[in-house]
């Protein structure tokens, strides 16, 4: 037994997080015994409960109002937070259930939510029944969930990175299909009359002049839904921990083969759990459609909420999801009262604190930070497959095809017009640079980070904030070089610190954590006007005149971008042969052995984030000059994922893949509308095209276009 334990790090057993012992939020049985055993703690808890009760039910003295604000406002925010937490729990518990039991990271979970909402809306309008809307939404989402489980997760068992990439592709495709059908409008689902209106709660918020009490009123439907989510949560927990089926599910997580050997229908159980988790997301969609509204973008919003909730609460733990959902719901709503436009920062800080002190989440089980990422086998294989034979010169001993490409790029302005130079090539080089950082991180280091576009966005924003822009109320008007330097420094610092948080866990967690951080920045730029100028961002960001050259002119700008992209490429290629690069690749393949050779694996990984951030930051400065403007959408969730798409489509095994992927992406984006019109589709279906292309690549060529090319030339490079 100990031999087995000794030769492999203890695998995170999220299933065990369902065990009664770790369910800290469940009330302990036999309260009398607890009080007898912990008299001091029992007193502290009792005092806290009394204090809380007084805060809720008592009349607030003026001093307290001066500190906290008016009682009605505060209590309303708390109730909003609690009920929002209930909604978050409904979405996140399905995500965490699927992740905890099957280790499947389903980034199409938000899509299941929005699909459920839309289906619920249609059925609700057609039938006039709110309850029927729930049934239809649950059924639709469960069906899509079953398709995912059968078509993706079961087919790619054990390849968790590839599974996750496929779910990203599916969320792009289905998201665009839903946009096609439902358009960009807002939909609201009507609650039945019996649930409309407000309830008077027995909570006094103020007293009138005549001495009568003013009671707090609150929408009935929100309270009902909150109660329902509590019931669903408790039932889920009981089903997992107190029933035979639950026991079988938990056993299947720990040892699938053994359960199969016992003759239990494991695949059936897993499919059922997947359908259930997906169905919950669909139900949440109807709830969300009633509370709030349904619109494109809500899928990402709720996916991200789920990610943050499970990161904070503990991945795979149902009680953790409950705790996380309440914390995040409360912090968002209370944050709006005390920190308007910065409330997302509060959420972000909670996540950072949890990652820093309890990387596995508040109620999650410890994950060995240096654990070998089995999920990275794909990347490692892709990288190993593209190794050059030793001794072949890399940087200066250029081969003929390389020379031809260099010459063509240098002479391009002779043949290409300004449109091509800027809209196609400059864009490709800039996006390629940003993706190149990901190639360094993922291809060499095995860390699939979604921070690249965010780091670029920060650099771009700060160039506008420190330097010049059309928004003179915010821009500080520093000289261009000072603005650029400060922007790059701050962006790199942000990327490095975020990387240091992300490396506290390994493997597939990286993608979840970096996506959560990236989206926090997006929502911050959207809400915040003091620094980021909110929704509209910055326009008229000038390209500086230096050395008497107007760098805004297409040819000059082309060479400027070509220079920096080429430099970044050479650095990335050079890096692979350096001791640092070798150590990074070693840390990707076998972190435990690297530590046993004397390397500090964490330090190497953080340094890789710093280098990738530097490349992205330079790319971000070029991006804002190229665009002339920057807005929240520049580093929104779509572009953040696009960078991953570019890197994977091009091929993550070689630095040139990033640029090939970027060129394909830009060409598609520039000319897709013509092509789409040609085949009779609306030209707005660009995302559909991108998503389908991404899915095809991930399904058929994990090492991207480069891999396809190698196979086409009949030189199979992969070991397979």
């Amino acid at each position, binding site marked *: *037994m*100990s*031999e087995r*334990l*000794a*030769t492999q*790090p*203890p695998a995170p057993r999220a299933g065990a997080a369902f065990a009664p012992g770790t369910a800290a939020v469940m009330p302990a049985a036999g309260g009398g015994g607890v009080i007898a055993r912990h008299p001091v703690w029992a007193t502290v808890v009792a005092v806290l409960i009394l204090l809380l009760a007084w805060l809720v039910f008592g009349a607030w003295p003026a001093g307290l109002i001066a500190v906290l604000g008016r009682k009605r406002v505060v209590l309303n925010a708390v109730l909003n937070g609690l009920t929002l937490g209930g909604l978050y729990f409904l979405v996140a518990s399905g995500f965490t259930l699927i992740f905890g039991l099957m280790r499947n990271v389903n980034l199409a979970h938000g899509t299941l939510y929005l699909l459920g909402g839309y289906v619920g809306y249609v059925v609700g309008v057609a039938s006039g029944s709110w309850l029927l809307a729930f049934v239809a939404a649950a059924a639709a989402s469960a069906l899509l969930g079953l398709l995912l489980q059968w078509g993706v997760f079961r087919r790619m068992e054990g390849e968790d990175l590839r599974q996750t990439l496929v779910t990203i592709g599916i969320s792009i495709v289905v998201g665009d299909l839903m946009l096609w059908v439902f358009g960009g409008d807002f939909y609201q689902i009507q609650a039945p009359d019996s649930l409309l209106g407000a309830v008077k709660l027995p909570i006094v918020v103020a007293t009138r002049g005549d001495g009568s009490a003013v009671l707090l009123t609150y929408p009935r439907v929100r309270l009902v839904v909150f109660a329902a989510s509590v019931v669903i949560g408790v039932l889920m927990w009981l089903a997992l921990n107190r029933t035979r089926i639950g026991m079988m599910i938990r056993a299947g997580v720990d040892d699938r083969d053994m359960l199969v050997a016992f003759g239990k229908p494991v695949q059936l159980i897993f499919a059922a759990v997947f359908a259930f988790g997906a169905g919950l997301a669909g139900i949440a969609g109807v709830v969300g459609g009633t509370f709030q509204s349904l619109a494109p973008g809500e899928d990402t919003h709720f996916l991200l909420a789920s990610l943050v909730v499970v990161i904070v609460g503990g991945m795979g733990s149902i009680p953790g999801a409950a705790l996380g959902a309440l914390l995040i719901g409360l912090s968002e709503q209370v944050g709006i009262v005390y920190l308007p436009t910065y409330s997302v920062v509060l959420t972000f800080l909670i996540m950072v604190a949890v990652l820093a002190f309890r990387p596995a989440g508040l109620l999650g089980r410890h994950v060995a930070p240096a654990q070998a990422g089995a999920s990275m086998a794909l990347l*490692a*294989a892709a*990288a*190993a497959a593209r*190794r050059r034979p*030793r*001794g072949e010169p890399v940087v200066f001993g250029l081969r003929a095809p390389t020379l031809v490409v260099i010459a063509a790029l240098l002479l391009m302005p002779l043949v290409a017009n300004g449109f091509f130079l800027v809209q196609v090539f400059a864009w490709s080089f800039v996006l390629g640079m940003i993706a190149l950082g990901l190639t360094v991180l993922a291809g060499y280091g095995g860390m699939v980070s979604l921070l690249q576009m965010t780091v670029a966005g920060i650099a771009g924003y700060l160039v506008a904030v420190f330097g010049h822009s059309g928004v003179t109320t915010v821009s500080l008007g520093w000289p261009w070089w000072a603005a650029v330097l400060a922007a790059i420094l701050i962006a790199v610092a942000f990327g490095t610190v975020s990387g240091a948080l992300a490396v506290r866990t390994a493997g597939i967690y990286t993608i979840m954590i970096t996506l959560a951080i990236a989206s926090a920045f997006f929502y911050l730029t959207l809400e915040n006007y003091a620094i980021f100028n909110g929704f509209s961002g910055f326009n008229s960001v000038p390209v500086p005149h230096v050395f008497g050259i107007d760098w805004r002119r297409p040819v000059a700008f082309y060479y400027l971008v070509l220079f920096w992209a080429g430099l970044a490429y050479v650095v990335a290629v*050079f*890096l692979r*042969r*350096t*001791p*640092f690069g*070798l*150590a990074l*690749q*070693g840390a990707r*393949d*076998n972190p*435990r*052995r*690297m*530590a*046993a*050779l*004397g*390397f*500090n*694996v964490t*330090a*190497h990984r953080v*340094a890789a984030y710093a280098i990738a951030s530097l490349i992205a930051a330079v790319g971000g400065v070029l991006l804002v000059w190229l665009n002339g403007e920057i807005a929240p959408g520049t580093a929104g969730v779509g572009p953040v994922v696009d960078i991953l798409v570019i890197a994977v489509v091009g091929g993550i095994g070689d630095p040139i893949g990033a640029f090939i992927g970027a060129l394909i992406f830009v060409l598609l984006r520039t000319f897709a509308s013509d092509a789409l019109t040609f085949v009779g589709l609306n030209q707005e279906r660009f995302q559909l095209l991108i998503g389908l292309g991404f899915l095809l690549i991930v399904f058929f060529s994990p090492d991207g276009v480069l891999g396809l090319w190698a196979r086409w030339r009949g030189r199979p490079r992969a*070991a397979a």
Partner: protein
Amino acid sequence: MASVAERLQAAGAVNALELRGVTRMFGALAALTDITLSVRPGERRAVLGSNGAGKTTLFNCITGDFPPTSGTIRFFGEDVTDFPPQDRIRRGLRRTYQISQLFAGMTVFENIYLGCRGVSRGRFSMRPPRRADALVQAAEELLDAVHLVPVRDLLVAELAYGQQRQLEIALALAGAPRFILFDEPAAGLSPTERSELLEILNALPPHIGFIIIEHDMDVALRVVDSVTMMHNGRIFKEGRPEEIESDPEVQELYLGGAHA
């Protein structure tokens, strides 16, 4: 060999390795219970015991792969209990793994070069290695010492099993080791490879001590000065090889356990 260890100790050297009350729990399971153990510098010791006795867990606690749940570990007098693995390695501790832990996608030379780089300065160096570098020379010498020169530029994945085991040992010899933990280095080797292994172990400079986990008594007892028997996570008996070999309790337990 024993005389070297005794001379070093007589000269006032502290113990190479000193474990006090080391316990390691996996959940409710005690993989190691209250292990107290001292090994002198230059001493060569075998750890024997049936499967599940806690031998590999002992190694993992010493190297820091898994920190002990309680107890202290001193390496040449320094308390390293809370050190991460790499800090122990940089102080001269080395280990091999029972199941080879190599970089399958790199060449043999790159593996050894990483081993040498890990225990020297410049782990973050951005200067590609050159033939004239002292570190490259050291790696080439090590390659020669473990008879892997002919496969220098092959990927590790392409090596035969025995060669991978040799590479595993080479990684433990990189730099200036002071104490090495060998986890079943002979497992799965052919008789010829075994005698090559014994040659390498016997050729180690006398100041380098080691602990070897080995099921094959013939191999183990030909290279060590002392033996520790483990059973169920505890130390069961310690002594000279001939004492342990003739101990009736050990014979019953170990042979019984091995053939069960």
